[in-house]
């Protein structure tokens, strides 16, 4: 699942259309949209608004396999208008912290240092992009994902030759972002490829359900059950899983049952090490 955050509607509209998202409520002034593969928050301008809406989106849709992307416009000294960047260092004029998104893949977007400002500025600096949300978004998204899965993609909307004016050309901005959607999709594929593949078997969830129906487990025991069954799922052959199912019937109490699961792990893990 992708979670997008944009400050403005014009930054969001191409993404909403591409992922076929529909309005799905909001939080304060933030508006949420949802589709089959992606969700999006229009947060309003500013790091605080971005952080609040990002937190609300993450809390409303908890999912530990989400990629978080802040997409929007930025200012840059001399990069051409429409050029995309991905932030590799994010700082803020209101915080001493600096954040370093991690990219353990070959990025298809050029990296840049992003500084999030509390006010618009035309004081462009070499090798640095300006925005007004990235830092707030990133800090908030870290509550829901690790740094490899959170990124800020910024498209240059103004530079020293064409500085930001008080009036946005919303159509131009919408078009700029829309043009970057294929780049964003490639990026998301690269990120997704990094994620360790989980075993596809349904055996573990079904077995855990059956075990919970048979015995009443404490929190600690539930943790042990989930861990041991997941581990068994990774190392047992199908016929061995069928035999393990019998432990549920044969065990007279939950302690014996959990202990039998560990004995099975002791036996089969040794075989599977090499």
């Amino acid at each position, binding site marked *: 699942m992708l979670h997008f955050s944009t400050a403005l509607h014009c930054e969001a509209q191409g993404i909403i259309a591409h992922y076929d998202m529909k309005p799905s409520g909001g939080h304060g002034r933030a508006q949420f949209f949802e589709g089959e593969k992606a969700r999006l928050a229009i947060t309003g301008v500013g790091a605080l608004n971005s952080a609040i809406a990002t937190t609300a989106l993450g809390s409303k849709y908890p999912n530990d396999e989400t990629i978080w992307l802040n997409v929007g416009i930025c200012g840059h000294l001399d990069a051409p208008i429409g050029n995309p960047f991905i932030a*590799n*260092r994010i700082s803020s004029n209101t915080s001493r912290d*600096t954040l*370093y998104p*991690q*990219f*353990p*893949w*070959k*990025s298809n977007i*050029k*990296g840049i*240092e992003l500084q999030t400002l509390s006010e618009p500025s035309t004081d462009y600096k070499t090798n640095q992009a300006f925005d007004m949300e990235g830092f707030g978004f990133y800090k908030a998204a*870290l509550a829901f*994902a*690790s*740094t*490899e899965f959170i990124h800020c993609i910024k498209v240059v909307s103004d530079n020293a030759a064409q500085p930001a004016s008080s009036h946005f050309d919303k159509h131009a901005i919408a078009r700029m972002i829309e043009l970057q959607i294929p780049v964003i999709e490639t990026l998301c594929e690269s990120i997704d490829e*990094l*994620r*360790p593949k989980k*075993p596809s078997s349904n055996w573990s969830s079904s077995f855990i359900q059956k075990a919970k129906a048979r015995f009443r487990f404490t929190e600690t025991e539930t943790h042990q059950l989930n*861990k041991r069954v*997941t*581990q068994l799922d*990774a*190392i047992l052959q199908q016929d061995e899983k069928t035999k393990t199912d019998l432990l549920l019937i044969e065990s007279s109490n939950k302690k014996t049952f959990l202990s039998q699961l*560990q004995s099975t*792990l*002791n*036996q*089969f*893990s*040794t*075989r*599977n*090490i*090499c």
Partner: protein
Amino acid sequence: MFERIYIEAAIREHPRTLALLERYPKAERVNCERYGEIFNPNRQNFRIQKQNPALILAEKRGTRVLPTPPDYGLGADRHYYFSHMLNCLYDCRYCFLQGMYQSANYILFVNFEDFRSDIRTTAESQPDEQHFFFSGYDCDSLAMDSVTGFADAFLPLFEDLPNAWLELRTKSVNVKPLLNRPPLPNVVVAFSLNPEPIAKSVEHRAPPLPARINALKKLSEAGWKVGLRFDPLIHFENCIEVYRDFIDHVFDSIPIEAVHSITLGSFRSPKSVFKKMESLYPEEPLFMGNLDLKNGMVAYKKSIESDLFESTRKRILTHADEDKFFPCQ
């Protein structure tokens, strides 16, 4: 080799930094104040970063040469370790580094001159004592030598320090920097070795066992002292027999005169490190069974550990004298 290089402010103009940046002109450069800003934050995934780590060039401040824990000696008067790098090119599933650090990025401390100065000061502070310096605790000493130039930078120091010993601990077969120079009597090139099935299934990206034995042979033929590090012993089906044959094979391949020391240790890990490794690799059988928690350490159940350890110890002692043998238990 590196998509991204982070550069700490203090060493931006250091000659080793400049040389590395020149060597990797295509790598994206990111400036930072201190390496901890990148390396230490919690919300990072070691397993995912390990697929393509970045390089962080930093300055090692504070204490650079540290005493080893009490049971990790090789018979010298004093034992120390130092880490010019954090993290390793290889991806051994039992390695504590994956449970110890938040990030899999490589840190290279470029201020070698400060390490050298501290080693010299340490050795010269007690000139009548033998000092042993281990270099492969937080990294593999030689695996990234073509990037770091570690061997060429540190070996000359030991030429000049007769009461100091250096251990290069490695699985790397990149031993050219050593073969290209005369052997040093106070340097031990110590190879971490496990039977081939373990090397294949657990020591990811590390050179295969035959290549490591071949490197050991070449070094011993060239007159270098070598070390054999059978650590960690891993418990698996028929492991006692497999380890027995493996020990025989290693000693049949290398002249015993070249062997400086042999260490032996079972798989063990501090609880917190183990928990992290287990959560990173929930499907890894190594972490699933036959383990107990004792005094804050996760290790094999006593009977399993002592059977494997004792049988391997005895086999080693059929090939080598006890004075070369240093068990870690």
